[in-house]
């Protein structure tokens, strides 16, 4: 009896842990994805081969290894992770930041402007551009925070609106840049690029660049602010129970504004890294890149924690990088979006798991009572 009990409490604890649930949910997403691929008459094994290749660089079919795939997967992950942090940071303070996309676009735009017009001094140039991207992202998020904190404007509405403002503002600005056509600007000077020759050599000419370092720093910064500082303490308290935080003297208005600004800085950083790391020219956007929106899903899967969000971002980067490989193996690349969507749906079902456990506990109790 007691052995069964301890065993049971282990499964209960496992399913009670958010991390375990996220892993379970990802597995479920893949399982259903696999079934779907079989249903349309393709071999799901090919899907996993493509994912394996994007993850390890190893091509199972011909036994060749190309580390470039690893580099690309990591590079694709960077904006997902950073935009995930944008969502997650605000979420920890109780806000729903749908504005990651707009903050990302603004960061990208400013990075392009500084990239094309800034001082062509090695290192300083791109550092300046990246800092500019973070500041504008923080500004773009901060506006929302102040509106929310001072005037109770719903952050959901204002962030969605500001996404469109950012998109068209970005077009107006980028069209003024040197050599601008309807879709691109002139090439950046070498000093603006984030490329890292060491990375290029060891990953066989992938696009992996200094943005990777910045992302790692961001992970540490995110974790440090949330878990170690009194700023993070105030933000978390505000996020869990705004009224109790206020009643305890935590300056909630300031907390909310700051958290949105920091969230925006993360997304702005993502924009800067994509602008100067993945392209050699500035882009005149005609639509959104959707990194900001995907960041919402990344944060959900990652439970808004530093490590969880990073891992979830890797997963999304991995899926994105395996899309081209899948198409080469007659697997529709849309299956990756379906899997991402399924994962989010299953995450939303987390409360169903809680309900199931409540029901099971109750039945157990009833049995004990009736046995008496």
């Amino acid at each position: 009896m007691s052995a069964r009990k301890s065993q049971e409490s282990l499964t209960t604890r496992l399913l009670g842990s958010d991390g375990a649930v996220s892993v379970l949910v990802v597995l479920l997403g893949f399982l259903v994805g696999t079934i779907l691929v079989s249903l349309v008459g393709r071999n799901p094994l090919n899907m996993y081969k493509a994912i394996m290749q994007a993850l390890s660089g190893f091509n199972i079919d011909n036994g060749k290894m190309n580390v470039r795939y690893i580099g690309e997967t990591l590079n694709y992950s960077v904006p997902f992770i950073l935009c995930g942090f944008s969502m997650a940071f605000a979420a920890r303070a109780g806000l729903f930041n749908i504005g990651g996309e707009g903050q990302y676009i603004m960061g990208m735009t400013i990075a392009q402007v500084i990239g094309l017009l800034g001082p062509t001094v090695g290192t300083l140039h791109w550092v300046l551009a990246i800092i500019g991207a973070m500041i504008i992202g923080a500004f773009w998020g901060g506006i929302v925070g102040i509106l929310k904190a001072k005037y109770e404007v719903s952050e959901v509405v204002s962030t969605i609106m500001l996404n469109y403002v950012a998109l068209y503002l970005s077009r107006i600005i980028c069209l003024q840049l040197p050599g601008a056509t309807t879709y691109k600007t002139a090439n950046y000077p070498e000093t603006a690029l984030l490329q890292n020759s060491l990375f290029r050599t060891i990953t066989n000419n992938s696009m992996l660049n200094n943005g990777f370092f910045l992302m790692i720093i961001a992970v540490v910064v995110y974790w440090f602010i949330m878990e170690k500082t009194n700023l993070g303490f105030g933000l978390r308290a505000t996020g869990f129970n705004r009224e109790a935080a206020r009643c305890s003297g935590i300056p909630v208005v300031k907390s909310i504004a700051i958290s949105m600004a920091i969230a925006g800085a993360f997304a702005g950083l993502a924009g800067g890294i994509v602008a100067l790391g993945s392209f050699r020219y500035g882009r005149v956007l005609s639509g959104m890149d959707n990194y900001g929106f995907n960041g919402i899903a990344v944060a959900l899967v990652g439970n808004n924690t530093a490590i969880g969000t990073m891992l979830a971002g890797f997963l999304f980067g991995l899926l994105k990088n395996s899309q081209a490989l899948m198409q080469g193996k007659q697997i529709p690349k849309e299956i990756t979006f379906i899997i991402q969507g399924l994962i989010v749906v299953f995450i939303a079902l987390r409360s169903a798991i809680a309900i199931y456990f409540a029901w099971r506990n109750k039945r157990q109790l009833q049995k004990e009572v009736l046995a008496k």
Partner: protein
Amino acid sequence: MDYAIEMIGITKTFPGVIANDNVTLEVAPQEVHALLGENGAGKSTLMSILFGAYNADSGTIRIHGKEVNIKDPNVATEIGIGMVHQHFKLVHNYTVTENIVLGMEPKNRFGMLEIAKAERRVAALSEKYKLEVDPKALVENITVGSQQRVEILKTLYRDANIIIFDEPTAVLTPQEIDELIEIIRRLRAEGKTIVLITHKLKEIKAVADRCTVLRRGKYIGTVDVADVTEQHLAEMMVGRAVEFEIEKAPANIGDVVLSIQNLSVADGTGHLKVKNLSVDVHRGEIVGIAGVDGNGQTELLYGLSGLAPVAEGTILLDGHDITHATIRERIELGLGHIPEDRQRHGLVSDFPISENCALKNYYLSPYSSKYGLLDYEKMEEDAEQLITQFDIRAGRGAKTLAGSLSGGNQQKVIVAREIHLSPHVLLVAQPTRGLDVGAIEYIRHRILAERDKGRAILLVSFELDEIMNLCDRIATISKGSIVGIFNQHEVTEREIGMMMAGSKREGGEA
């Protein structure tokens, strides 16, 4: 003779709790039967099963000797069971009649509403049972006592012959309570069977014929009220001897610490709920604010603690003007606050006890370094001490999430934090609401101990007993103003009740 209600062997479980464990309740026709128990003893669950809001896991229910299956409240209404809920279920911008007929509106053959017909019937019922209400008045314009009468009429309109009252006196003034007791007697005389859910012994002695006691979900016994003392009932309810009066040393009153001068505070909609209110609190005394819920107590506390802006007047704390200070400034000056709504204002339920204990001073030494780095271990260490010191029952020590604690232990966490911060002034609101007797005694003693240490304490409570017992001075609040201030033994409960209803006592220093 058949019983009016027989509930035999009722068992009902919720996840993790056995709310009713083989409980039996037998109520004779035309009697007033009290159902006594502490919070969480399972009274409300049992009555919700009778009313069809919950279904029992096992057990039988017989009404007038006939076995019934009450699967939802509609069935309960059909077989003549009505319930007067503790929190009234009324539509505020509807008239009394509209509220009463809601759900069974009288219609003519064209499907048109015949409200005049309904009004006549309501008037007739209200005449018959002497339940004074104006059928045409809007519910939002009538008093709480009248709203309760509307609820009673609702059950009578549906031809109930068994009426359940759930904690009916919680929201009433002493005078309104007397009226209610009269109403209940009249209902009994007219042939109704009454079940009265309560934890107030006095009311049981006043009106009930028999009393069934529940403790922690179990049936303890049924007694004839006339045969037992209040003390006996209390012991059945709690399971041990209970002290009614708290022994307290004479107050050692010092200087004024908290001075409230001509204070006015508005509620969320901009109406002034506290009007021109003045009161001083001295070192070493407890000043109680007695009053019926909704007379400005909440807004007074909001204004004092900084949760709501002050419209007019001045608040002085140790001579500092804190009228427009931020909440944090007030806390740093030594204002402690045990809030009325502990879930909403007192605790972050997703935080562990340790972080809840540090919620007000996490940014200061020793928890935070100069650079804003937190020392969580120190928080846990201190919290462990408070857990021992305040006898907080927590499964995982300082790491236990506050949300997983029972109500009494949550309150102890808040009390521990506020006392640990050693404020000069402690605002205490409804400190024992919803707690069991053991926790109530403990928290009252802690508050008294703080007084004896020389703190100034302002206590707001709707429990008149609590105010009468604990406070050195009692201020009565009505419609946002102080009606009278008296020393503890210079005033009777009845007089306070009169003032709560708004009339001033002759010679009172209002």
